């Protein structure tokens, strides 16, 4: 039996070989030191790289300049904005924003740290920081003034490259005039409505059509026919009315799309061939938050865009069918409508992610280009994209050839029934794309509270396309 060890057997001595416990002491200390030093280096990295952000948050630094694609000034933090000609910023106030902190979800608001005239080595100074954007101020102004007294929003991008070319939201604050009394401003002056969900109206039929194509195939859907007598009674005895009181009779898909026939699409949704789960699946791929499920919000150079949302519970129920027609609880931002149009226009079902900042010049004058943010996930298949493109192009050719003039477009119109602050009104929408080589533009146009005889979405689109025609040479 081994002898029991006692304390005296281990009386410590000056021992260069260092007993285990002592070696452990050295290792533990080394470990702690190494961890702390690594943390310290990481801290230094974070502090240096985030310091422009800290400075921007503190309001203790000056800011640089934001330019459009041709060098026109959209924001200038180096001198008073009132020194610019009147109306210089009237159309971009709620898109580009300013450094006051009142408009957080704007380009400047979200990129204060990139626009701060500051760096860690030199501290605060009058540097040369600037952001160059893809926006066409010329097109923006043209659309803004074309809207006249009407309110609304217009957004357009190059569907080949993702460059955001135009983004107007009216009413719009004029940052050059200042806005000390926010309560006196017209409602929604400080936010760009292109980034916020709205009732899409019949532009939603594009999404529903995409779901049908995805599940049933293009030829099967194109061969479908449904009858419209003006009012269609669903399986639960609820009425879906058509805007054409006499009805459209028996129609093919192309005819129904052209007529924007509600009963046709309601019957498509209720059809046993198209399970609601398939619609939900396609909607989800397109970025909708369906029945409260989480959907990723989008970002445009830091500007946050809320995802589309809808409630689809029973294919035989009015609310679900109404939602698939773009009314009721369905909400989509014009930005997202434009994004889907990009995926249709390029015929792949996937879009180039839009971006607004094309390059940055830092405080030392060093220029660095910003490239496309890459592609979105696939919304639907290329086959579906091409089929929708054909239907929309046919729609534009037969319905809008006069209004849109020389442009080869594909469009879908919509009329959204909106109720806000106890007041009911209708918004007019047009989402689509232009396939011309000189004008590869996807767009969404919204005119609020439009009534007959006033400016149409097609006329506004024509103004937009005229301003953007030959856009690739406007650099």
């Amino acid at each position: 039996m081994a002898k029991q060890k006692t304390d005296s057997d281990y009386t410590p001595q000056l021992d260069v070989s260092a007993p285990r416990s002592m070696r452990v002491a050295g290792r533990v200390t080394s470990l702690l030191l190494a961890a702390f030093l690594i943390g310290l280096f990481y801290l230094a990295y974070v502090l240096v790289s985030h310091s422009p952000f800290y400075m921007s948050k503190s309001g203790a630094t000056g800011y640089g300049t934001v330019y459009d694609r041709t060098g026109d000034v959209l924001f200038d933090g180096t001198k008073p904005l009132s020194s610019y000609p009147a109306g210089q910023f009237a159309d971009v106030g709620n898109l580009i924003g300013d450094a006051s902190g009142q408009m957080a979800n704007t380009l400047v608001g979200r990129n204060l740290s990139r626009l701060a005239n500051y760096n860690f080595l030199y501290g605060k100074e009058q540097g040369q920081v600037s952001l160059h954007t893809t926006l066409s101020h010329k097109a923006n102004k043209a659309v803004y003034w074309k809207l006249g007294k009407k309110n609304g929003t217009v957004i357009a991008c190059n569907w080949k490259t993702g460059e955001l070319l135009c983004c107007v939201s009216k009413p719009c604050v004029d940052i050059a005039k200042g806005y000390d009394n926010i309560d006196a401003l017209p409602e929604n002056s400080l936010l760009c409505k292109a980034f916020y969900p709205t009732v899409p109206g019949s532009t939603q039929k594009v999404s529903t059509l995409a779901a049908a194509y995805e599940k049933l195939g293009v030829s099967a859907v194109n061969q479908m026919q449904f009858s419209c007598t003006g009012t269609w009674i669903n399986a639960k005895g609820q009425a879906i009315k058509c805007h054409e009181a006499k009805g459209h009779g028996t129609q093919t898909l192309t005819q129904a799309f052209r007529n924007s026939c509600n009963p046709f699409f309601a019957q498509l949704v209720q059809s046993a061939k198209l399970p609601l789960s398939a619609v939900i699946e396609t909607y989800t791929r397109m970025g909708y938050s369906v029945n409260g499920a989480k959907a990723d919000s989008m970002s445009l150079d830091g500007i946050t865009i809320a995802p589309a949302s809808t409630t689809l519970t029973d294919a035989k129920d009015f609310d679900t069918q109404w939602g698939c027609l773009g009314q009721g609880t369905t909400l989509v931002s014009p930005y997202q409508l434009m994004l889907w149009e990009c995926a249709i226009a390029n015929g792949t079902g996937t879009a180039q992610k839009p971006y607004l900042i094309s390059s940055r010049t830092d405080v030392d004058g060093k220029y660095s280009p910003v490239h496309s943010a890459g592609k979105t996930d696939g919304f639907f298949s290329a086959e579906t994209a091409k089929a929708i493109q054909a239907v929309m192009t046919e729609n534009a050719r037969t319905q809008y050839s006069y209004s849109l003039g020389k442009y080869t477009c594909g469009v879908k119109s919509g009329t959204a029934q909106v109720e806000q602050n106890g007041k009911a009104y209708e918004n007019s929408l047009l989402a689509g794309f232009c396939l011309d080589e000189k004008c590869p533009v996807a767009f969404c146009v919204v005119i609020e509270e439009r009534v007959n005889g006033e400016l149409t979405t097609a006329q506004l689109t024509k103004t937009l396309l005229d301003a953007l025609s030959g856009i690739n040479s406007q650099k």
Partner: protein
Amino acid sequence: MKKSLSHPFLLLLILIAHAAMLLLVVFSFGLTPDAVELASAVLLFDFIGFIFLQFVHREACTVDSVLLLVLGMSTIYQSCFGGLTFAKKHFIFAVAAFVICQFTYLLVRNPYRAEKMKPLWYLMFIGLVGAIFFLTGSRGIWIDLGFITLQPSEFVKPVFVLICASSIRTQLHKHTLLGFHYVPDNLALLACTAVIAGLQWYCRDLGSLPTFVAAAGCGLMLRFRYLREKISLRLVIFLCLCVCGTAAAAWHLAPAYVQERLHSDIWADMSGSGYQQVKALTAIAEGGWFGKGAGSGTLIHVAASRTDIVFSAICEEWGLFTGLMTVILVLFLPASLLAVPPRSYYHSGLAVGVAAVFMVQMTLNVFGSCNLIPFTGVTIPFISQGGSSMLSSGILAGFLKAAQAPVLTGGNTAAETEGGR
């Protein structure tokens, strides 16, 4: 004993560092009475410290040298925040910390004698805990003596480190109860840790709890490794699960004010709960690499700028580079034991305990004020203002110095008894 030639050289380095900083102060403020007072105090302290080291006793000079350097820098920093005013009180406590470091060294440099004083450490622990419980009042952590306020919890730290270190060699004395083997001293250490946790919970000041937990963890690790070739995988897994379980429980059971700090977004509440950190980060950004200049900082107007967010205050005036170098310099204290390893189990425990306390405190202060971890409000040893913290840190530095001293046996150093090895 081999006569070292490094003392004058070390003093020269310390003098150059302090003189350079003082020149910058004079450059910023001119030769004002405060500047003269500050320069005289710091340089005189350097000379007296050098004479003490050179002629009184020369053992373990690394700790003393670093301490002299850090204390002088600390006095200069504290005198310059927001404008030049000689921080007399801070300087007095700095000197006191240096002196108490020497006394502590003398007390524990003989590990056998110090280990025999274990009952005294436990008595001191009970006394300090009692003082916190009964004398602070209203679940606070301060004792107001009228002319001075003391924070007894700061003095618990060195006593706790002594307790952690004092029972490593008792690991063979296992007892058995209901089939379980246990070492009474280990249970006593766990009980002390639990008492501290309970007390801090009671006082609503959990900020320094990680410091104690780290010291206890290191102490237990050394005890487990005593005479063992390897720690079994089962034990490692068990310990990891215990740590994770405790951390998870603490995370969920933490009181509301702690939960708020754990989940707060300082940028969402810049004028409320995130105010100090936002100001601290902005100050660092404004300071850049080389600072705004001594006395040019504005962080002084923010609460706790001399204590909890002192790292940012230094960075604002002297620059991030100097701030980082200062922190690394304080690290030299525990790191010195890598160059001169402890020569007894007891001193190993002391050294690791002090290293854990210093590094966890600096982690909580520096990373917390910079928003990388929840902000707790603890001090940086020797740099932050505060007499209790300074004296407590001085005692801990004394432990480190003792850990580098040759082991004493019967009044002679082991080095002497073993032929000067």
